[in-house]
């Protein structure tokens, strides 16, 4: 049970980093990114390519960060030419294209079979200690990501992002360069997503295209919506809550002796139903964004 808790907590930390990245885009800046998983995939496939080419793992991290920064910039440039709705669809399409390419191109990171045998972090330590060390590393990185997001949210730059979300034309009329703000926030959040993906790849020791399924993006969306859009505390709470809720679904199956199909279906219901329920009854999430406070 302890191993299970450590495992769920470790994955919750990695999803927490990813949720914070989405919150920077969607929560703070109003950038409705349905292709977040592609940025996460830059990190996983950075790790996969480094492994295939015999590079050290940290080179895989650098590769993943470069991929993610470029893809984030590309997303941002698309946003210069499209309205918010169309941009969301474009990001979803690009993520699907990326997944289909990795699925069907056998010569590219193993195709549908993926890449296995990646070195696990802290492999030299005894298994129990390594698991705890990994959890500590992921938790520390989650704290770092949280501090970065908090600092951005409270800065003048964060204010420009909120204005972009609220009234973009008005923000431009007040002298804010929204295209530049969009580029910066997309690159920063893409790097965070890639770090999460890289660690996830080395945690599972496997990278495959099924990790890029679009429902993974919506899982992260549910964490942000349920926790509290634009509230970093809420987003981390949402990530932990959702990860634990999903992790305990198999136990419910055993208790009530229902078929295995129940697990997959219930996970989708929790994600989809959770998003829907919160959007209808509590659209600001468990921890709503705090607005206001600065006075002369």
């Amino acid at each position, binding site marked *: 049970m302890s191993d299970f808790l450590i495992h769920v907590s470790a994955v919750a930390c990695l999803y927490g980093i990813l949720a914070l990245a989405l919150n920077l885009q969607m929560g703070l800046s109003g950038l409705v990114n349905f292709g977040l998983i592609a940025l996460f995939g830059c990190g996983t496939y950075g790790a996969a390519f480094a492994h295939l080419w015999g590079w050290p793992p940290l080179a895989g991290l650098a590769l993943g960060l470069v991929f993610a920064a470029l893809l984030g910039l590309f997303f941002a440039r698309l946003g210069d030419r499209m309205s918010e709705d169309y941009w969301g669809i474009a990001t979803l399409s690009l993520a699907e294209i990326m997944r289909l390419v990795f699925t069907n191109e056998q010569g590219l990171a193993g195709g549908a079979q993926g890449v296995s045998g990646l070195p696990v972090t802290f492999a030299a330590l005894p298994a129990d200690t390594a698991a705890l060390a990994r959890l500590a590393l992921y938790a520390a990185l989650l704290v770092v990501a949280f501090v970065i997001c908090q600092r951005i949210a409270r800065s*003048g730059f964060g*204010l420009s992002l909120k*204005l972009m979300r*609220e*009234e973009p*034309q*008005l923000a*431009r*009329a*007040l*002298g*804010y*360069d*929204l295209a530049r703000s969009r580029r910066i926030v997309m690159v920063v959040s893409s790097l965070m997503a890639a770090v999460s993906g890289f660690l996830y790849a080395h945690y599972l020791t496997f990278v495959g295209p099924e990790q890029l399924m679009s429902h993974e993006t919506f899982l992260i969306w549910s964490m942000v919506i349920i926790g509290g859009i634009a509230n970093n505390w809420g987003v981390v709470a949402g990530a932990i809550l959702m990860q634990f809720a999903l992790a305990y679904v198999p136990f419910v199956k055993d208790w009530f002796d229902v078929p295995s199909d129940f697990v997959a279906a219930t996970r989708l219901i929790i994600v989809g139903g959770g998003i829907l329920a919160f959007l209808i009854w509590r659209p600001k999430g468990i921890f709503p964004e705090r*607005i*206001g406070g*600065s*006075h*002369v």
Partner: protein
Amino acid sequence: MIEASNIRAGYGDGPDILQDISMTASAREIVTILGPNGCGKSTLLKTVAGFVRPRGGAIRINGEGAETVPIHEKVRHYGVGYVPQTDNVFRTMTVTENLLMGARDLSRDTRNERFEALMTQYPTLANKRRRKASALSGGERQILSLARALMAGPRILLLDEPSAGLSPAMMHDVFEAIGRIRDAQDMCILMVEQNAYEALSISDRAYVLSLGKVALTARSADLLNDPAMERLYLGGDPDA
């Protein structure tokens, strides 16, 4: 201050909304752009502001070519303040926060000084400084958006239908506020309006647009006494 020559502009792949329009506006002057719905008034203002890039012609601000300069650079470089017709306040922010949004590049002292001056000038806002902008009436929001534009100390003010959706009493307050700004500061104000009589009463000159072209230009006082103008825009007897 503003000199637009032979401007052609439109949206996307659509036809030219503005067809060969030329106009000027100087410091310490209110210039009103009038015309029926769909004649291109707001498009002209947005083109001068930098939201719409002209397809042809030239826009010079303070003698410099500015037709390709986007709005956020015009705000900083030429001191342009733009007040949109709708969505003109940050609704989730308080009155104070809305005003501070207009003072991003100012020192703390200047910012506080201007804030207090505006609070004195607009007691309506002072009384509601801690209220959310969403709780203000239409007229109060218009005053707030005007005051926010003034926080930055603009040299050019572009107003897109400042009286849109306001009651007659509120409309009067807003126009009075605009008139005071011109009188108190060496500012160039370019205003698009539907309420011709009120707008002409406070402005110095006007351009009347029709189908994307300048149909008439004259001093406001002359237009107010023009029977044709009265017939077309001021509710005069069409058969007179």
